């Protein structure tokens, strides 16, 4: 029959799709994979530092972890909803301590670094990278600012510290209409270094990366202007042996050197 010939030839691509679907067994593979290669959730400011540490870990131990990077608040929420992370490096210890209190972690975790924020301006910006905020203040008054990027203070610790620093200088209300909020501090860095914003406040660790520092100039913002960025990490309930090994590795000298390289102040050392 004329019609059924076409139908039969349409079945072949469907068979191909079926093979695509059933080739690996969905559940089993995902299960074993997560035991061998745990997913570690890290705050966005660790974008470059944690990638380097994971590479060093793989080189030193021949074990691998998979990294997921995003805003600390988002991860905390996802962990509460059952996300399959085995380790969580937060940019704000408040999130870790709350998770520990509510029974999602193995223990209270460890302070692994203290972070800093910087003001960054892209090339060709009318703003200057001025850590006293005097230039920013003048620019706001003169109407030279149209867009200024920070991470979302609601769930990104670096965004919250940016807000605190701006409030400290009584600039928050003036700058609020011009703010663009990144979903995490990496996205804020994207906005701040693009030609679409005059500048922003981002993580020191991101600004130190060659990829970012090539895009503009930055200055460290005084620590006294905001509450400290005490970054805490913790193993979660589902943590397996590889995750535990990685947790220990992050506290060892090789990892600490990498943290230092990205401008983090290590616990027990002064900045």
């Amino acid at each position, binding site marked *: 029959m004329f019609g059924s010939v076409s139908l039969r030839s*349409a079945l072949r691509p469907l068979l191909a799709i*079926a093979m695509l679907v059933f080739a690996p067994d*969905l559940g089993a593979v995902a299960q074993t994979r997560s035991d061998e290669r745990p997913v570690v959730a890290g705050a966005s400011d660790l974008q470059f530092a944690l990638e380097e540490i994971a590479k060093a870990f793989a080189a030193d131990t021949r074990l691998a972890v998979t990294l997921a990077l995003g805003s600390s608040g988002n991860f905390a929420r996802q962990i509460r909803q059952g996300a399959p992370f085995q380790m969580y490096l937060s940019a704000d210890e408040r999130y870790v301590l709350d998770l520990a209190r509510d029974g999602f972690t193995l223990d209270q975790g460890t302070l692994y670094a203290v972070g800093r924020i910087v003001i960054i301006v892209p090339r060709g910006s009318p703003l200057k990278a001025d850590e006293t905020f005097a230039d920013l203040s003048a620019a706001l008054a003169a109407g030279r600012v149209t867009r200024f990027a920070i991470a979302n203070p609601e769930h990104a610790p670096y965004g919250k510290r940016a807000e605190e620093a701006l409030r400290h200088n009584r600039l928050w209300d003036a700058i609020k209409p011009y703010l663009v909020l990144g979903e995490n501090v990496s996205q804020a860095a994207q906005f701040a270094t693009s030609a679409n914003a005059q500048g922003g406040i981002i993580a020191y660790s991101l600004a130190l990366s060659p990829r970012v520092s090539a895009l503009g100039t930055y200055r460290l913002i005084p620590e006294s202007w905001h509450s400290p960025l005490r970054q805490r990490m913790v193993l979660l309930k589902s943590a397996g042996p590889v995750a535990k090994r990685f947790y220990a590795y992050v506290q060892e000298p090789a990892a600490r050197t990498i943290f230092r390289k990205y401008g983090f102040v290590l616990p027990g050392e002064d900045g």
Partner: protein
Amino acid sequence: MDWTALWLSLRLAACTVLFLLPIGITLGRWLAYRDFAGKGIAEALVALPLVLPPTVFGYYLLVSFGAASPVGQLWQAAFGRQLVFTFDGLLAASIIFNLPFAIQPMQRGFEAIPPEVREAAACCGMSPWRALLKVELPLAWPAILTAMVLSFAHTLGEFGIVLMVGGSVPGETKTIAIAIYDRVQAFDDVAAAQMAALLLALSLATIALTYAFSRRIGRRLG
């Protein structure tokens, strides 16, 4: 170029299409042939995902399937795994969200079959099942294929829902759309550009295929 993410996206799209094929044919056919009170509402419900912002949809999915919900806990008890943040959960979300892309073209395809043809099949003594296989499906197959192709392409590009319900777990829920977002944030423009170009090419191919099939349907009715 995140091959794991690409493979994951392709598998998600393929699984979605495979599940939507019988669902779409059944519901599309039912909506095409039957008239009933409340049909308008039924069609509106089917079309809802077209207008609903993906994050709204994702939010409701999270609330209804999450670890704290009855459905989520049942699933956990039955399969030992979460429904959210897993491929399974993503697949469930994808199937629901692609219903209009699957059902609507198929419904049009079945509607386009002249009732005389179906009556003739019945007069010939064909059972409804045989009529479906031998008469209706061969006539409606361009529409069915369009529906499958559209669902496949739409799933490849889905972002908002995956972000809400997926959690970007590599190898499990980190689709290529999420991977592009991730690479941009890592200031890795090269990888992001590569993946974006690939998705663009795939989308163009899909649309071209869809139009080619539409012309075939047009000729058939012509």
